[in-house]
Each structure stands twice: as C-alpha cells, then as structure tokens.
C-alpha cells in the first residue's frame, strides 16, 4: 500500500503536512469568523446598512457563502501547487 512513500524524503513529507495543517488552520479560522462570529455579532452588524442590506443579515444570506466558495478554490489551488513543490503530485 505504501509503495508511493518509497523514495520520498521523510523530512520533506513532514514539512508538506505541516504546511497543509497551517493552510487548513487559516481556512478554518476564516470559516469560523465569517459564520459563528458573524452570527454572534449580527445584532450589532445590522446597524450597518449597505444598499438596503443590513450587514449582519447580508453575511448570513450571501457574504459567508461567497467566502466559503473562495476559501475552497483557494485551498485547491494552493495545495495543487504545493504538491508539485514537494514532489508528491500524482503521476499523469
């Protein structure tokens, strides 16, 4: 099963995983802020009104969703790049 590990530098693998964890943590932090912190402070955020949208409402209805989509694509592109950097990408 682990044939794909053969020939890979252990230290390099560790670093690859550490970088992945770092990126995941950043993404999870943003994810947490745009949903849970935004929900918690929505009564205050609602005092800001943009184009008719109270900001707290807007975050729940659209803002957080747009950020979710961006977060996933960001993660995908960053990791696909990192794979190559560390030589762990898939064979074509």
């Amino acid at each position, binding site marked *: *099963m*682990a*044939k*794909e*590990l053969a020939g*890979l530098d252990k230290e390099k*693998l560790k670093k*690859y*995983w550490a970088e*992945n964890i770092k990126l*995941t943590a950043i*993404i*999870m932090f943003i*994810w947490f802020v745009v*949903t*849970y912190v935004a*929900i*918690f402070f*929505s*009564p205050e955020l*609602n005092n800001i*009104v*943009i*184009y*008719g*949208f*109270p900001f*707290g*409402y*807007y975050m*729940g*209805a*659209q803002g*957080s*969703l*747009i950020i*979710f*989509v961006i*977060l*996933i*694509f960001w*993660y*995908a*592109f960053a*990791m*696909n790049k990192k*794979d190559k950097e560390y030589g*762990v*990408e*898939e*064979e074509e």
Partner: protein
Amino acid sequence: MAKTSGIGGTAFLDNLAKIYGIYTGGFIFFVIALGIAEAWFGMTPIMIGYVYMGITIGLYAVIGISSRTAKISEYYVAGRSVPAFFNGMATGSDWMSAASFIGMAGTIFGLGYDGLAYIMGWTGGYVLLAVFLGPYLRKFGQFTIPDFLGARYGGHAARSIGILAAIIASFTYLIAQVTGVGIIMSRFLNLDFSVGVFVGLGGILVCSMLGGMKAVTWTQVAQYIILILAYLVPPTVMSYKVTGVPVSEIMYGQILQKIDAKEKVINADPKEVEVMGLWKKQADDLDADIKGLPGSLAAKKTALQEKLAALPATATVAEKEAIDKAIKALPATPEIAKEKWSDAKKAALGKSKPIKPYLQPFARLDAKNMLALTFCLMVGTAGLPHILMRYYTVPSVKDARVSCGWSLFFIFLLYFTAPAYAAFARNEVLSNIIGLPIAQLPQWMANWGKVGLVAFKDINADGILQFYELTIGADAIVLAMPEIAGLPYVISGLVAAGGLAAALSTADGLLLTISNALSHDLYYKMIDPQASITRRLTVSRILLVVTALISAWVATYKLTIIVELVAWAFSIAAASFFPALVMGIWDKRANKAGALVGMWVGFLSCMIYMIGSRFYGLDIWGIRTISSGLFGIPLGFITIYVVSRMTEAPSQELQDFVESVRIPRGAAKGQED
C-alpha cells in the same frame, strides 16, 4: 487511448461542454415552445404537466439506459472519469433535495434572519469537506465510505458500523425524497399519491439500475441544469416587475427595507391589534380548558350532546351532522386533549403578539440555538455518505479539491437566491395581500388553498384580511411564486419539473449509497469475497430495486415523523461518521478500539439527547432536539482520541497507510476491468 463512443466514452468526455450546452439550449427552446402552445393554442395546465413530466423523465431515462455498464469501476465510481466541473454539478443536484428546492425559501419566509442557519449550515459544511475529507478519500480511492473505515481501522467491525450508519442516515432521507416525488406527481398530474410514488419510482430506477454511478452522475448533471433554471426564473421575473432590475439577489436589499417598514405599520394598525387580542383570548380559553382537564373535556362533550338532543324536530340533517362531527372531532382521551390543546395554545399565543421583525436576529431562535444548529448542519453535511462518495468519481486528487469548489459554487447559486425568493414573497404578502377585502383576494390563494398550503379566516369579521388571519405553508412560497408573479402556467410547470429533478437526483444518490453498502461492503467484502463481477453487479441491481420498493412502500404511509427524522439523520451522520473519518486521516495514532468506541459513543449520545429532549423533557442549556449533534460530535472526537491513546498504537503498516493517504502521489486511476 482509442476513441470510444457512447456515454462515458472518450468522445463523450471530450465534448461534455458541447453536449450539455446543446441540452440546455434544447430545454430552453422546449419551454418556450410550450409557452407558445399555452398562449396561442390553449394548451391546458394538466396537458402541460404531462408533457413536462414525460419529457424530463424520458430524458433521464435515455441517459440512464445508454449509460448501462458491465464494468465494476463504472458501476461504483463512474470509471473515475468525471471532470471536476461536472462532478460539481452532479454533487449539486445530489445534495439539493426536494426540501432545499421547495422548502428552503419558505423556511426563511417564516423564520426571517434565524432561517439563515440553514443557508450557512448547508453550504459551510463543504469547507469542512474540502479541507478535511474529500481529497483524502479520493486518494484512498476505493468504492464506498465503509470501505475507508474498513481499511483504516482494520477488520469487519468498523466496516459494519459504517454500513449501519450509512443505511440509517440515507434511508430516512430517501423516504423523504420519494414522498416529495409523490407529492409533485400527484399535484401536477392529478394522480393518486401512491400512483405518483410508483411512477416516480420508475423514474428513479431507470436512472440508476443499469448504469450505477455512471448513469446517476450523467443524469444528475442533466437534472441540475433543469432544477437551477426552474429555480432562478420566478424570482428574476419578480425582481424585474417590482424593482425594474432582473437580478433578485442584488435588488432584494431594498425589499428588505420595505418589509421592515411594513411590519411596523401592521403592528400599529388597530384592526391588527384587535385580531391579536382575539388570539390572546383563544389562548387563555385553551389554557383554562387544559387546566380543567379531564372535566373540561367531558363538559364539552356533554354540552354538544345536549345541543344535539335539544335540536327541534325541524332541524335539517346537515345541522345534526355538523354537531355529530364536532363531537367526533373532540380528543378521545384527556392525554390527547392536553397535547392537542397545548399545541393550539402555543400557536395562538404566537399570533397574539406583534410580528417579530424579519431582519432581527434571534427573534425566533435564540443565539445559542442558532449557533448550534448551524454547526450541526455543517458537520452533518460533511458526513453524509452519498455526498462523500461523489469524490471517488473524479480522475485525481487535484480534481477532487477543485471539484469541492465547483460543488459549492453550484449549490451556492440556489442558496444565495433563496433569501431573495423569500423576501420578494414576504413583501408581496405584506404589501399587496394583507389589508385586502376577503372578497378580492387573488386567484392563487384559492388555488393553493385547495391543497391546504394557504389558509385564511376572517377572525374579527371585518371583511378585511389581517396578518394573523392568514397562514401560508412553507412549501407554498416556491410553488406559488410563478402565479404570484403573474407568470403563465408553463413556468409553474417548469418549477414542478425542477422540484421533481431535485427529488429524483437526490433519491438516486441515496439509493445507490444504500445498495452499494449492502452489495459491496456487506455481500462482497464480508460474505463472499470470491464473487464474480457479473454476480456482484447482479446482486447490486437486485438490492437497488428491493431498496427502492421498500422506500416507496414506506412512503405511501405518509408518516409525519419522516420530516423530523431527516433532520435527525444529519446529526446522526455528524456524530457517528464525521469524527471517525476525520481522525482516520488526521490522527495517525487513532486505532480500531478508539474508532469503534468513538462511533458508538457519538451515535448513542446523539440518540439519547434526541429521544430524551423530544419525548422526555431532557434539556441541556436549552439546546433543541434538531441540534443534538452538538453533544455527539465533540464526544465522538474526544472518545476516539482518548481510547486510542489508552490502547495499542496502530501497526506500522497502517501508519504508512495514513501517510500515503495524505499525499496525492500514487492515486488510483480509473481501472479497465
């Protein structure tokens, strides 16, 4: 590789954009042609209904039948050849159920800001899926989710729990979809509900039986296109009519302000206050009745019987029957009376107070319950097996990552429109319906009143409709919107076809999950590992049909508990599946003992709170039943962590396996078997 023809062949895969582009164009042309037939040739609604259902199900059937396959990897994972973009579309329709399509906007219409928990919960879960699970499952690259549990935690025990949880979570959900199909079929084709269920069942089976995952994938893409077109048309037209700009998602900001202003006007209207007072009185009366049980029930019965006896001989049969009916309608026992009257009292009390502002957070759900619900829905989303297994079908880990993004993008298109849908509908009701003389109410209210989705009663007998004299069912918002917006029936039919597509596509994915868990995990992996390919496929197809028949049979009973069970399924998936899957990838030290105990602890603690809070008054921090996963999820994680560290570490081989899952290199490609 030589060019192969047919669905799933290389010629097909190379031209996907063109093929589905022509399909979309063709479908739009077909809708316009139907519109012309309605306007100029007097096509009747029922004919339009039949044409829509016939054409769309026919299309799905053609795709399903031409995707038939005898290859294992095509049957289980569509040959791992589905491009990220199209897997995103397929996941979108796999995910968006009849409830998302028909019920979501109505939920927000009723709950206001607090309803957004569903919008955020059902989309934010994809972030969890994208970073914690999707790419790694693709790297693992087998056929099912129990496959992963079996490989990672060794032996049949973990696999068995996986099979059990997959079936429990998927089956309740499946029944809800089949019920949705039956409702749409019966309403738009005037069929009996049970007939509708079985006709719809045929539509589900032709898509999945012959071609398995391959057929389901390509029909789901086709279904996504229809459902998203159907969803976007009515609010776009409504936005154009009300604001002059056909982009409902941007324009509903000003509509929100109108709603807010209108609610204040209504709350200050003396006639509205009068109706609220009448509801308060009714609540007080009910309260007195409840306190007076069992005497009050007996007194009601005696009073009615005396009235019946006191009727003069000249009384008509109808008068007698009316009193007879009232006697029969009384609750049979004091216990039932208590439950029934308490519910009625709660509803009456809700209508006795001024309207809670639509935009105000936590008016209907307190802050902690809103946070808890959002969290449980997110984790549940990331733990549902029929969604997770879609990421086995893409060609590479790279594609799996990108595909998570496309999945959420396609889901986002519907979910970010739903609040706009709700706002336009609420504005219409508050501004143009409330305050109308009862005699002048628009036709759509009568149409949907017939099927019980709209109800009104002139409580203060002033001939004018007040806010609390009107009840609108959640499902009415999406289904009635075309008529509210004054669109021709051809658009109503389109919405029905969209709802049907949403229900069918989700049903297909669920059905496949259940039958694969049984045929692949239980039969092939655990009972008969020597089975030939033909035999495995035959067993799988038989199980598919049997599962479908059982779900249709259960659906015909129209159990009201089903809707509630679906909500429970999320928490069950979240508490039992999610921790074991995530720990399997992210914690090398997690072992079999930890996973087994963890899955049971997650599952049981979730069940205990569900049943306890629903039926026996269990209450921790005021968390509602629907968010039971709040306790099961962390308990599951902690248990796996602690028990794993108290027992022996996994073998070197398993630890290497975890290492290998973490890097894309060496991922399995679509096999030729």
